[in-house]
């Protein structure tokens, strides 16, 4: 009599899922930070600091909300941030987080020479237990991006080995990091942000192929994949394409060729692209939908500006593309006509021709350069796609058109790309663009009294009704496409609302990891 009962119990125990055995979430999204998890050296500035929390954070709509800070004010002159901290934030070792820790983090990062750019910070001070003051050397509203990205470290225990043994007040604590292989994290029991649905999360690193193989064997729940193969998701996983501002465009040399050179001796200026009519015509002619289909397999969206869809973007600055007729009219009106019958226009003996440089190793940029060239030929402009190395591009980018890409959750990018002070500095303002009205707008934006107040100035810098760096104004760029970042995501996982991603793959998708939920079981 007893034996059947025993068998039944055994069968039941085998059929029932083990109650407390929550399975680990496995992510293969790349992006291993070789240098470790030290915010002072730059960890977390793109995406999610994971182990640390920040003073502020961007929500899914990119609105700033408090994280460690409960309220914050910027002084009248725009130079002093005063922030009140929440009282219940604790590091994963149980010690409370105070204003001292914040001041220590900011002061240390300023001096560290890492990937956190705090050169504008004069000093951070703890006024009392929970109030901190950050004084800047000059008004700089984009400093809020630092408030939203610099993770706070504990002043008492920060030191030599911190990057590999991070302790923070963020949603997770490190359990184990086997470099080059995987990172294992578990929820920080002291985190102030609420419940996390996973007992353990594993980030598997290694090649893209390794991630895909894991997905095919059912061992991974979120996998980053190249857009070209995204649609072939294995069973149990769904395709997710995330919108980005990871953009690609044509950067124009803005000055005529006067024989001037950079300090390194490379030529500046191009007589063809120095003519606004050419730049506007390129903007009018480009069929961006076709470029998305051609170069991105349809996984992207047309780019009209450097920050499409972000709060500081000005859609008014754009002009409609895919209109060769309008483009040809623009060229005609400016005196660009085909006089020798070779289908390429000339003006005063000058052919409407320039090179379009792209890194030969990047197939997406190559496809964009070839596609744009084909479209421009139709309006009588000879854009010669030229694959080269970054080295060569560096030497020619002030005199030829280059396919460049940007896109960040930070309007200071608009400043770097268009302000006259950054002409010829690194890859920023390659065209040596300088318009006093735009410079003034950009400076006014940085000097604004609040982030909200700066938005209008950023937009006006692109187009204020009369001038701007956007296509309606000086047309410094012809933006082409915004990429999509593609993932395979387990059918059993709900990621909630997602941000528009910035340039670069990997950790951005984990921005809201604490609020992800299993939907099966």
């Amino acid at each position: 009599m007893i034996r059947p009962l025993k068998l039944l119990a055994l069968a039941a125990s085998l059929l029932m899922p083990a109650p407390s055995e929550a399975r680990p979430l496995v992510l293969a999204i790349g992006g291993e930070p070789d240098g470790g998890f030290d915010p002072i050296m730059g960890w977390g500035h793109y995406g999610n600091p994971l182990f640390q929390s920040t003073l502020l954070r961007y929500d899914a709509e990119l609105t700033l909300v408090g994280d460690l800070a409960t309220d914050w004010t910027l002084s009248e002159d725009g130079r002093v941030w005063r922030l009140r901290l929440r009282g219940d934030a604790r590091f994963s070792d149980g010690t409370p987080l105070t204003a001292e820790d914040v001041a220590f983090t900011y002061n240390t990062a300023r001096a560290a020479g890492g990937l956190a750019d705090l050169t504008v910070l004069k000093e951070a001070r703890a006024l009392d237990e929970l109030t901190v003051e950050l004084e800047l050397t000059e008004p700089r509203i984009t400093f809020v991006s630092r408030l939203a990205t610099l993770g706070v470290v504990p002043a008492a225990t920060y030191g030599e080995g911190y990057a590999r043994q991070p302790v923070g007040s963020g949603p997770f604590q490190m359990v184990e990091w086997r470099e080059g292989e995987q990172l294992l994290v578990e929820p920080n029991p002291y985190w102030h942000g609420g419940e996390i649905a996973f007992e353990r999360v594993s980030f598997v690193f290694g090649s893209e192929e390794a991630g895909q193989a894991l997905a095919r064997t059912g061992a991974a729940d979120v996998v980053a994949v190249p857009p070209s193969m995204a649609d072939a998701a294995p069973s149990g996983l769904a395709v997710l394409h995330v919108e980005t501002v990871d953009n690609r465009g044509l950067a124009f040399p803005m000055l005529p060729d006067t024989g001037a050179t950079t300090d390194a001796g490379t030529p500046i200026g191009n007589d063809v692209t120095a003519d606004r009519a050419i730049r506007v015509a390129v903007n009018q002619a480009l069929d961006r939908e076709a470029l998305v289909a051609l170069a991105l397999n349809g996984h992207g969206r047309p780019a009209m500006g450097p920050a499409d869809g972000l709060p500081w973007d000005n859609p008014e600055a754009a002009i409609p593309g895919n209109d060769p007729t309008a483009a040809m009219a623009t060229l005609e009106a400016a005196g660009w006509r085909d006089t020798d019958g070779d289908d390429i226009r000339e003006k005063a003996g000058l052919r409407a021709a320039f090179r379009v440089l792209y890194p030969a190793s990047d197939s997406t940029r190559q496809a964009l350069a070839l596609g744009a060239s084909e479209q421009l030929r139709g309006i009588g402009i000879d854009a010669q796609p030229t694959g080269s190395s970054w080295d060569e591009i560096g030497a020619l980018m002030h005199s030829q058109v280059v396919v460049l890409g940007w896109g960040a959750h930070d309007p200071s990018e608009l400043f770097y790309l268009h302000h006259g002070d950054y002409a010829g500095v690194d890859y920023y303002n390659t065209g040596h663009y300088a318009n006093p009205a735009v410079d003034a707008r950009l400076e006014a934006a940085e000097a604004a009294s609040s982030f909200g107040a700066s938005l209008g100035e950023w937009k006006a810098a692109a187009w204020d009704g009369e001038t701007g760096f956007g296509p309606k104004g000086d047309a410094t760029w012809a933006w082409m496409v915004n990429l999509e970042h593609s993932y395979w995501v387990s059918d059993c996982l709900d990621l909630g609302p997602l941000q528009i991603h910035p340039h670069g793959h990997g950790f951005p998708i984990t921005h809201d990891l604490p609020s992800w939920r299993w939907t099966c079981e």
Partner: protein
Amino acid sequence: MRAWLPNLLAGRLVRLTWLLPLAAVGLFTLISLAPIDPVQAYVGGRSSQIGPEQRDAIAAAWGLDQPAAKRFASWLGQLTKGDLGQSITFNAPVMQVIATRLPASLALVGLAFVLSFVLGTLLGLTAAAMRGRWPDRVIRTLAVALAASPGFWVAILLVAVFAVGLGWLPACCATPPGQLATEVTLADRWRHMVLPVVTLSVVGIAPLVLHTRQSLIAFLKSPAAHHLATHGATPLRMALGPGLRHAAGVALTLHLAGAGEIFGGSVLAEAVFAWPGLGQATVRAATGADAPLLMGIGLATLLFVFAGNLLADIAARLADPRLRRPA
């Protein structure tokens, strides 16, 4: 009786004393000539959040604002104190990066080394003993096919068949995803080693098979072998007896001399299998123009290959008495 050993060691020591400085200077020159800006590589996609002042600060923090000769001098100065410097990409002492990653690579390379030696020699002997018959033809075809196959391609093929297709073996990593090192069983570790080790073995096996086969055939044609054969020894017994001794020295020399190739192959295998070894670190260091780390890895590899060759010579002399005679 072992008079050859001190001579050999002394000769090699002399060679090492001029080889090391030469390699260091050569490596550093190549790295400084590489068309990669280490600061740009370090900043990577984060350009828009790093202003020019901060770039200068980064360059200064890593000493990259100094001229190349001065950087080399200060690197040498540190080296004399036993310090290999600080890695830019890993933001950690070079010594530590190498120390944490070398064991995983050594396990992989060591196992592959032994496996390919045993398999290669046995297959070569078998082929020679069965010369002209079907096992010989199968083995030779296999060897030629393997010699022509790139390592990473073999790796992807193995993953496609045994991990994704059949589901027998894990597709990646040294341990199962989501498990702590302490939770991983020994069986798991071995299972995770199978595909990478097989991939790496393939790199070294083909030349070994063909060389062993050839040297055994030469032996079987010799008067000594004819003598043994007339006394009733079968080709198989001769292959595994005196023939093995005859071929082993050559095989071992060849194999140890090729140790560098297996080490090189591990870079690709580690990338495909997400193996936490030195190979991946090498790739990152190279793409980031991380001079200190590249120098460290380069010198470590040099010592490794050098030791491999030295061991090869010693082992070959022990196995084959003919080599002990002064040349």
